[in-house]
């Protein structure tokens, strides 16, 4: 039975990895997850039941009562069995899965602790029930009651879970609460098991178990401390950063990078890009940002979590020959930065009104960092995996011909303890959307000097999209944020150069770039400064339809 437990654990782990990494996997349609989880719970509980019922302390006929062996020794022996047969296989299987994520000792210990906590909860719960039952009949009755109780509890949870969408901070508080409650429940169940086995006080034990089960949800609900949520990152070089307003002086050797021609930013690092989170006037006694505030990073309704836009592609230019022809595929919701008159229009302001107020400019700065440059062939035909930082890995499948195009599937894989965050800070948020790690895959044709920058189209995590697999559970974060890169061989090369697909692949390199957050910074623009920013009559360029 213990061997079966080990095999089932291993199969479940393999299954999780398989469905997360295989496109349109047959197994992913079978919805085996619930069965496997249920199988594990039943098998784990069954294992402990077999172990404890062999010397049930509540059964007066049990042989151990007359054996020259103390009940303490018996209990300790059972506990050792729980560890070696139930917990150790789980730790071995899970531990093998945690490799390759660069996790530190603290993370490994916390993850292991979570496994031990879950296993002990299951094992101690089953053991206590078994110890309290004097016969198989009682055991079945108790098990049925437990199953019904769990089912009702889960149904209630599901019903409430659907109705209320809670904020991230509240989720973290609930997670902390559940962790503390689980610790309490584990101790309570162990105590109940001890009481049923060593002093053989059945009613006290049953009382302790019931009290534990009743109190644990209350503790989870009442818990207030959230140690998971990290603060957002402030831009470290903020003092060096400045804004210049008004038309740029041709003699100025450091005119700064133009957010608009009359509003420029100075002091940004070489590969840093500033994106406007909000830009709007500050009106007394009115909330900020007001409706119509401008943002480079608007809400993205199309289910994608990628937010890189043209400014980020431009930051790559300096790393390549200036004669490179650039093409890009970036976030569709960004359609060029609005002109200042359009910004005013969205805010329903006229220039005269606009320059009466102070304006606040909230920016987030990202730095484009090269992760790797490889022959494109390596992306084409091999699996690739890049450790972005401890607990975060970008994984690529090789290209495959799917749905009439060459597609490369992959995922941003986050793994770590849910109660001990891997990241030191929270990602910046724009319009209720977390600006999490984003990447560029740049196809580099050295011969034709043509670069194609593809913003890796990660799906939005909040969407229940089929390539986003959140396998996080029980205080372990295990999230696969999927993406699909579709590629066609350029027809120009087929037509004019008669180049085959293999030749086209072999002549290219591919680089992976990471937009790493440097932090958030805010500026206040005085009415005088805004008068200069809005002084220039903006020429309305004919925009792309």
């Amino acid at each position: 039975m213990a061997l079966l437990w080990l095999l089932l654990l291993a199969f479940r782990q393999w299954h999780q990895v398989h469905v997360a990494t295989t496109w349109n996997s047959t197994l992913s349609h079978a919805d085996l997850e619930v069965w496997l989880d249920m199988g594990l719970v039943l098998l784990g509980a069954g294992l402990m039941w077999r172990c404890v019922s062999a010397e049930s302390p509540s059964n007066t006929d049990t042989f151990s009562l007359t054996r020259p062996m103390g009940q303490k020794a018996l209990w300790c022996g059972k506990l050792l069995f729980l560890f070696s047969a139930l917990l150790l296989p789980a730790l071995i299987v899970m531990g093998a899965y945690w490799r390759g994520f660069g996790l530190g000792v603290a993370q490994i210990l916390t993850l292991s602790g979570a496994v031990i906590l879950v296993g002990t909860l299951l094992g101690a719960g089953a053991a206590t029930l078994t110890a309290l039952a004097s016969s198989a009949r009682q055991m079945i009755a108790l098990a049925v009651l437990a199953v019904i109780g769990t089912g009702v509890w889960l149904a209630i949870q599901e019903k409430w879970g659907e109705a209320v969408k809670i904020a991230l901070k509240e989720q973290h508080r609930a997670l902390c609460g559940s962790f503390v409650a689980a610790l309490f429940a584990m101790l309570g169940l162990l105590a109940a098991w001890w009481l049923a086995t060593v002093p053989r006080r059945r009613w006290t034990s049953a009382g302790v178990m019931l009290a534990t089960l009743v109190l644990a949800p209350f503790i989870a609900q009442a818990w207030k401390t959230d140690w998971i949520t990290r603060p957002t990152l402030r831009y470290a070089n903020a003092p060096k950063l400045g804004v210049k307003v008004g038309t740029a002086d041709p003699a100025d050797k450091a005119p700064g990078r133009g957010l608009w021609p009359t509003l420029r930013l100075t002091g940004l690092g070489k590969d840093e890009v500033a994106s406007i989170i909000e830009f709007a006037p500050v009106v007394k006694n009115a909330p900020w940002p007001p409706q119509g505030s401008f943002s480079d990073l608007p809400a993205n309704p199309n289910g994608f979590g990628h937010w890189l836009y043209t400014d980020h592609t431009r930051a790559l230019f300096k790393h390549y020959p200036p004669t490179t022809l650039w093409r890009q595929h970036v976030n569709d919701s960004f359609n060029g930065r609005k002109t200042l008159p359009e910004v005013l229009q969205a805010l329903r302001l006229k220039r005269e009104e606009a320059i009466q107020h102070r304006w606040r400019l909230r920016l987030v700065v990202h730095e484009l960092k090269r992760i790797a440059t490889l022959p494109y062939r390596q992306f084409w035909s091999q699996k690739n995996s890049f450790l972005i930082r401890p607990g975060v890995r970008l994984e690529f499948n090789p290209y495959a011909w799917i749905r009439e195009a060459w597609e490369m599937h992959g995922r941003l894989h986050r793994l770590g303890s849910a109660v001990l965050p891997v990241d030191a800070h929270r990602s910046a948020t724009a319009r209720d959307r977390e600006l999490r790690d984003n990447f560029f895959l740049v196809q580099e044709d050295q011969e034709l000097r043509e670069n194609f920058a593809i913003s890796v189209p990660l799906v939005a995590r909040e969407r229940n999209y089929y390539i986003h697999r959140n396998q996080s559970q029980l205080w372990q974060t295990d999230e696969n944020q999927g993406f699909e890169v579709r590629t066609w061989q350029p027809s120009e090369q087929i037509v004019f150069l008669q180049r085959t697909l293999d030749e086209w692949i072999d002549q290219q390199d591919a680089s992976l770039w990471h937009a790493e957050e440097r932090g958030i910074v805010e500026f206040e623009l005085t009415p005088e400064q805004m008068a200069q920013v809005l002084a220039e009559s903006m020429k309305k360029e004919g925009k792309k339809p």
Partner: protein
Amino acid sequence: LNLLLHHFLKEFRYLRSRWFAWISVLIMQLAVDAEWIAPLSVASAAPAWIGLLPMLMWGGAAVLALAYAPEDARADDCSFIAVRPLPRACYWWSRVAVFGLLIAMPMVLQEGVYLLCSGRPAADVLLGMWERFFITGACIAWLLPMPLMAKGWHRFTIAAVAVISGLLAKSVSVTLLRRTSRLSHEMFYTSNSLFQAAWAGALLMLMLAWWQKRHGWSLSRTLTFTAVVSCTSYALAWTPLMQPWSWTPREPALITEIERKYGELPQPQKYRFYESTSEESTPELVMDGELMPLEGLPPQINPHWRNLGGEMRIKDVALTGKTDGYFKRRFFFLPAIFMKDDPWLIRTLQSALEPETLSMGSSSGHRAMPTCKWPIPVDRAAPADVELNFEADWVRQTVLGECELRPGARVRSDYCEMEVLQVIPHQDADGKEQRGSVTLVFKQSKREIETGGTPFEYFSDVWMVLRAPAKRLLWQQGQGALPQMRGFYTGWQRHLSRWTFKDVLTSSSGLTEADLPTLRVMLRKQDYTGTSRHQLKLKQVSLTDPQSEKPWAYPTHPPRVAETARLSVQHEFTRIRTPAADASREEVARFLADVVTLSHAYSYRSDLKKDGSPWFPGNDHAIADAVARHLLRHPQVITRLPHLIISAENTFMRELLDAMLLASGIPGIKRESNGLIYEPPNGSSSTRRLLNDIENIVGGWQAMAPAIEQALRDRDLSPILAVHAKWRSEVRQHRSDEELLKYLRERFSVSTLWELRGRETALKQAREMIRAEYERRVPPRIGIDSELRPLAECAIVAGMEVALDRRLRGLRFWNEKEMDHEDVMDLSILSRSFSGGELKWVQGLEFLRQAREWRAADFSYDSATLTWRRKTNP
């Protein structure tokens, strides 16, 4: 019998407390189903506890079947029953009596009382009771042999293993079938076939119990075999042995007649072959198209086509085609689902509708030919004989009744009853605001008996349509939510639903909230008529499709943007490495590839505004001239391309050719804003525009490319002029009536029809042909597919009032904000039918505003000029 009765009473005494508890659950379920308590209500949601009742009802029945007094455990050789002087037959008959009297009978009686209280006819009550017995037996009978197999908690374990194995088998087999769709002749089980299989499972379980008792198996072996029996029983549900009772043809004679008449299907007018790639990355040749309608059949029936595969024969080589995807297989409710989107559905309801009622928003039709795939033939250029096998599932539509769209309105029929509870304008089924929509909240009760029922499960047998009689409009699609349900396990299901029809209260439809009571809700029922088999034979067909083989460029967006898109291109062009004066052909080709890539990257520079004016005025002459100098040395790089157009943005390629001819120094060539013109030094020429025509003439590039190459080589325009002369002669040539009619049949060109003016006999033939084609091919709905538009335009010019009526009514649904210059071109064709001229943007908008107010009846047709004139006294 006395012993049997005694043993049964003994069992009853043991079970009675549990049995009475279970009976109370049954009564509670009856009260809920009949809406005596917790009735269906708009005001409040269904109480959560009623969801537990079915679980308690069926779980309780299972517990009763598994329970027996401990001293009667037949699996235990030490139990009292082993030595009791009770014949084995008595024991088993008493077990059967426990099932029959204590479990099945209350279930059956509950169903009977429910159906009687629901006012169902006696025949339905009896059928419902019989089916409840059948279902109860399927769910419970297999548990009866358990006492023989195990004692104590082991029997629960065996039962649990049987259930879990069955459910696992379901997960795995559904997965496999979804993926391969090759295992069964039908797709997915129906609940009826599953119940039949469960009865077979009960028999297998009895045999297993007998075998197990005889050989004294261990628990693990018993569990293993139980799992095998459970999976086997489940697998039986997928086999033809377990045919659902409702899946029987209702009109076999009609099906025979259809097969006799159309055993071989009429030749389709539209089909194509194109290359694709399978999921396994294997190249394959795919055929799709549109099947011809089968005429002379009852108007109430429509088919749902499935392709069973076919054979392709090229010379002496035979290739076997395959169809995949589970939608190609027989699937018990798909035909009914697809009818909802079928624009031809309206024809099946015609007798209940005003003449010329048009459908709103229907999309796909049933005539689309399901695809068939073959391996790529070695000799694809050779003609092929193709034989395809089809099956059609025929569905008959019956109108059950209709009522007004107002709260309290009802539809009553033997099959179904419906009452409108609420009518909510501008809201969707989830209660969110949705302008133009109308949501109905209604209560519906429906017969749900397998015997004599329809195979269309999951509420796909009765659908609702909404119609506006005054406007002659019908909404056949809708989206719904099913918030509450009662009597799910009975022969008379009740539910409270919300159903939303979109785009009803719009300015286009001319309906407002005040018009809601004038609308009518119609219920249509779908019956399975039968399945017919057909063959389609195509002789000596071409497998090539030049349109699908043209290379194309995937649009991308460049990050470098100058002040305008045109400037961006010029700026980027300076970055491209220019080849040396003596560059090889390969280098020039690379240069050209680089430039064309750039052109594609900024292809949006050629985009037009809605009114047809350019977003970015200007041209690429400077770039074209710079490139042409290099191309002149190796013109083959461009002139030997199989196709000129390599993307939607094609003028750049022609500008390159223009620049090459200009740079060649041939006298008489001048460049104007829209291309080259030819003005020979020695006088006038009949050819003025040199290359612009190749963009508009079918096969123009293939004819002109060699001429351009030769002209460049010889520095002489004669080859190009010769091509132009040939084209002109073809246009001027007087085409015979037969040629014009043939061309008209293939293309439905309005100009060809106009060419027939004055040729009375041919014009009459053309009119008849157009009328027949229009009636056969143009579905009765608002809006016409772009490919059918030429036919619709021809029908108007040919004098079909119906076509004009549909076109004018369709114009009311045009949104001016979404119009572009191509729509104005369409309006120009219509304008000419009213003796108008070509319309520019502003005129087009004005014409649209006027035409929206017109009615076909206000116009009379002048057959001499093929135009429509306003009646003096309409």
